[in-house]
């Protein structure tokens, strides 16, 4: 791994972010809107539901964590799409950069984009709704790490599709996370799902992350097993995502789609 090249490619995205104030505003705008929306829904549920009684902020915390996942994945996809939209794709793929260096650069840069959006949103929730995601404590770092790895994995899978099928795959980039959201049990316990769906849901890290978040906020108990499981499953999917990306890249070279994507 040549870190100078990873830094070089990351610079491309940092320069892009810093060059445009509307772009920074866009990164902050959507997570903040989510906080407003879910803040009011959360307030209503807290006042009206016995389940959520005395558990102020569970829904809003879930919304913040889910948005973190969403932003991680979208950031990754967006950075890849930027190369296609700017017709820079060919220049990038003929440069002496390894695929793993491209993945590393996108992964490291996606966290910056994600945090630009999420930090103001999470801070906004404190004075506006009296909800602090930081109440989760140290396990929050593990939960965010797991969410980030899984978000990047979804980004990798979508970018693999972009390489394989070209820019027409772009719509899938936007839809990918909504497909998994119902199975993630973000706002409700896993028991709500039919039994056969619970089996599928458990092989995703999301259920373990959000169940653990509720466990900490509602019961004040930390299950390290659940956290370990969430991270392990996320890493497994990440490795799968990397493999799919390599396979798509090799396939694109055979089909010649790298040239079509780039021009």
């Amino acid at each position, binding site marked *: 791994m*040549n870190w*100078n*090249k990873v*830094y*070089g*490619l990351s*610079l*491309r995205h940092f*320069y*892009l972010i810093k*060059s*445009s104030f509307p772009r920074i505003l866009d990164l902050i705008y959507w997570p903040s809107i989510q906080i407003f929306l879910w803040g009011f829904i959360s307030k209503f549920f807290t006042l009206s539901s016995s389940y959520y009684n005395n558990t102020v902020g569970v829904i809003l915390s879930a919304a913040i964590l889910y948005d973190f996942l969403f932003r991680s994945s979208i950031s990754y996809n967006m950075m890849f799409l*930027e190369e296609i939209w*700017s*017709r*820079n*794709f*060919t*220049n*990038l*793929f*003929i*440069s*002496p*950069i*390894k695929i793993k260096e491209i993945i590393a650069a996108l992964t490291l840069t996606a966290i910056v984009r994600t945090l630009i959006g999420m930090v103001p949103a999470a801070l906004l929730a404190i004075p506006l709704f009296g909800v602090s995601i930081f109440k989760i404590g140290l396990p929050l770092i593990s939960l965010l790490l797991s969410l980030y790895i899984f978000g990047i994995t979804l980004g990798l899978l979508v970018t693999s599709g972009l390489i394989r099928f070209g820019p027409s795959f772009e719509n899938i980039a936007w839809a990918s996370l909504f497909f998994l959201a119902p199975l993630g049990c973000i706002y409700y316990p896993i028991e709500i799902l039919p039994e056969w769906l619970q089996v599928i849901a458990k092989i995703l890290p999301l259920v373990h992350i959000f169940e653990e978040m509720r466990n900490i906020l509602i019961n004040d108990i930390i299950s390290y097993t659940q956290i370990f499981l969430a991270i392990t499953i996320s890493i497994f999917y990440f490795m799968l995502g990397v493999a799919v990306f390599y396979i798509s890249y*090799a396939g694109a*070279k*055979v*089909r*010649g789609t*790298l*040239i079509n994507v*780039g*021009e």
Partner: protein
Amino acid sequence: MKLEVKNLEKKFKNFTAVKNINFHIDNGQTLGVLGPNGCGKTTTIGMLLGLIKPSNGKILIDDENFENLNREKILSQFNFASPYVELPKKLTVKENLEIYGRLYGVKDLTRRIQEVSDDLNLSIFLNKKTGELSSGQKNRVSLAKSLINNPKILFLDEPTASLDPDIGDFVRNYIEDYKSKNKVSILLASHNMKEVERLCDQVIMMKEGEIVDRGTCQSLIDKHGRNNLEDTFLKLARNKNELE
């Protein structure tokens, strides 16, 4: 650096885009690749740049098979410019050159950026966003990017397309001058026959994925009894049977 192509072929399902082609570019030579649209030029360049996997045949770099060589090491000695491939428009010229300098592992990058910028009259645009430049300026930035690593083999796809005669002439002069000073091997795909006559030592003519003729510009003009390369190109492009 010497580039040699042996029996190179690319099939896409039932369509053969490039059919069993052979050519070589000796160190410091310029090879022109001519042919009508869809003749296989882009696919050939794509294979040489490692973007497309050949179905058959070999690409040899200094007599070593590309497939057996370290991809990154080889690509660090190549570069490519085309008006159809752009640099990020929202970034300044300097930022773009810095990024590609880093990707190509260029040492003393600040000095190199200044050098190519001075050579291509880009110094006054260095802090301007690439997307705000005229097509002639963008074209020179693209050329600067392609020279940032002092490539041993340079691939140029229609480097003066859509440029006014003055800028076009500047670019051709620059390529000529750069070649004489740096012993770079160049593969030039172009539809501008005067440019090809001026810059190329050898020419291959492609049609429907095959090389239909080759030689120096003058030898092809003489062989086909035409007055210039453009008329020769038209003859070859329109009448394949005559060649057979």
